[in-house]
């Protein structure tokens, strides 16, 4: 498919040493400007799928193509922005320099870097904190730096692994809105791992439900809530219907939602 940003076909991953089949024959097409959430029980292979797409782990079988290129080529071309659950900032760099890190690696000149960092700092609402060090920020602010860093070089694809998992509910909902704004303003495509059904529904254009042992795609739920989404979206009847639909898909996939 030529209009796919991500094209996953027959992807399997076995960790030979631990004798664990983390992913079993996964196929998935993700289009331009989609926001796809992966949800499923713990250990079903969400992180592994994300890492295989990002060419961090080598698949045992199958292939991943990003913008029509093999994952490795896409990585070397700087097509990925990555956000982890922990912010993973460099303590010895200021906020501005943390955001500029990928720009340095991609060889942007100084003037361009400074201009882009300024832009990003404003987008994630951190103006005035440019010269702070990470340890001087709250957890939510640190994660905003990490998101700004991932978006800074306008990568074709954003891979986010439970980026808000460690934050409190209120911070999380605010950052959800900020993320959607960033996503709408940039041309990016997002793959987003979460444990929260409502977060997945609120953010996504599609929710991919996975089942465990071996990790498979058990259902795909398209989310037809209108854009742009707002705080009030969470109170619409359609929102609750979709949350229910995803929850049932999770149960059908054998997820034990305690």
């Amino acid at each position, binding site marked *: 498919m030529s209009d796919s940003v991500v094209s996953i076909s027959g992807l399997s991953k076995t960790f030979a040493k631990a004798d664990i089949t983390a992913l079993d024959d996964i196929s998935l097409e993700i289009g331009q400007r989609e926001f796809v959430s992966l949800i499923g029980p713990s250990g079903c292979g969400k992180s592994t799928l994300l890492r295989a797409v990002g060419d*961090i782990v080598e698949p045992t079988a199958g292939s991943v193509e990003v913008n029509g290129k093999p994952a490795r080529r896409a*990585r*070397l*071309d*700087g097509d990925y922005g990555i956000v982890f659950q922990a912010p*993973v900032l*460099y*303590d010895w760099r200021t906020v501005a320099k943390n955001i500029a890190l*990928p720009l340095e*690696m991609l060889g942007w000149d100084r003037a361009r870097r400074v201009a882009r960092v300024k832009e990003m700092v404003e987008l994630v609402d951190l103006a005035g904190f440019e010269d702070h060090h990470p340890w001087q920020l709250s957890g939510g602010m640190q994660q905003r730096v990490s998101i700004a860093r991932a978006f800074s070089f306008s990568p074709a694809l954003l891979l986010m692994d439970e980026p808000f998992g460690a934050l409190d509910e209120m911070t999380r909902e605010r950052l959800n809105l900020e993320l959607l704004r960033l996503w709408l303003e940039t041309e990016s495509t997002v793959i987003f791992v979460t444990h929260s059904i409502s977060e997945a529904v609120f953010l996504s254009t599609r929710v991919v439900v996975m089942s465990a042992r071996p990790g498979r795609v058990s259902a795909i739920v398209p989310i037809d809530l209108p854009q742009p989404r707002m705080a009030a979206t969470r109170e619409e009847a359609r929102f609750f219907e979709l949350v229910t639909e995803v929850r049932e898909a999770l149960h059908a996939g054998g997820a034990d939602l305690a």
Partner: protein
Amino acid sequence: MSTIAATIAGRAKAAAATRSALSRGGVLALVLAALWGLWEGYRWLWIATGWGWPFAVDDITMPHLHAIVAQLFEPSRTGGPLLISVLFHSAVFTAKEAVVGFAVGASVGFLLGVAISQFRVLQRGLMPYVVASQTIPILAIAPMVVVGLGNMQVAGWTPAPWLRVAVIAAYLTFFPVTVNTIRGLQSADPRALELMHSYAAGRWAVLWKLRVPSAMPYLFSAFKVSATASVVGAIIGEAPSSIPDGLGGAIINFNQYYALAPESLWATNLVAAALGITFFLVALGVERVAVRRAPEHLA
């Protein structure tokens, strides 16, 4: 608003700094008093009971501490300058050897650590020799190195005696730096490494932008150990090659007159200790400035 807040915060910080400086000064005074008490108490007890084990105590084996300190302000010889002034010049001479030795040893140690961590072959091939080098007693190799290098000629140039001593200081410096460099470079956050991988960062970019900065706290731990070791190396290096200008020379010299004036040797030891502590404090000070980390990361 924010300036007022900043001023208040600044004042509170200054007050806290003064308090901590005062309490640190207090602790230092207490420790010094305790050491003095230990020395004089031990002396008094051994003399009063007449114990001969492990050695008999008298004014020769253990002079009074105040006598040792007073000796610093006596002329070093009849009509000569005060002992403290002589020892000060010796300490400066030894410090020069130690500083050069430290700089060379730390650089070599760091580069060796980087090379070993970057090339797996070297880990096998080089590491055993690095470790073995530290099992050779420094007292055995010091004369060989200092005298041996003195017989060496490179294009008509022979290294000056103090430079040869600096080699011994470097020899004691490099090992902790190598070991901690290797450990420090491996201490980088695995997810930060994945991030660099995702930016298609090359080996050297990962090294300079991530691994070396992550290694800084480890490096400074090594520098603090090595700073004092370089002073010890310089003193030991001077002794066997009869270089008279440094503290090692002073120790050899006063050792010969120990029975007559034991206080002079002890005073020299005090000055040597002070030099070592100074080196440590300089390393600590540089660390405070250089390592930008969350406060709890600083020792």
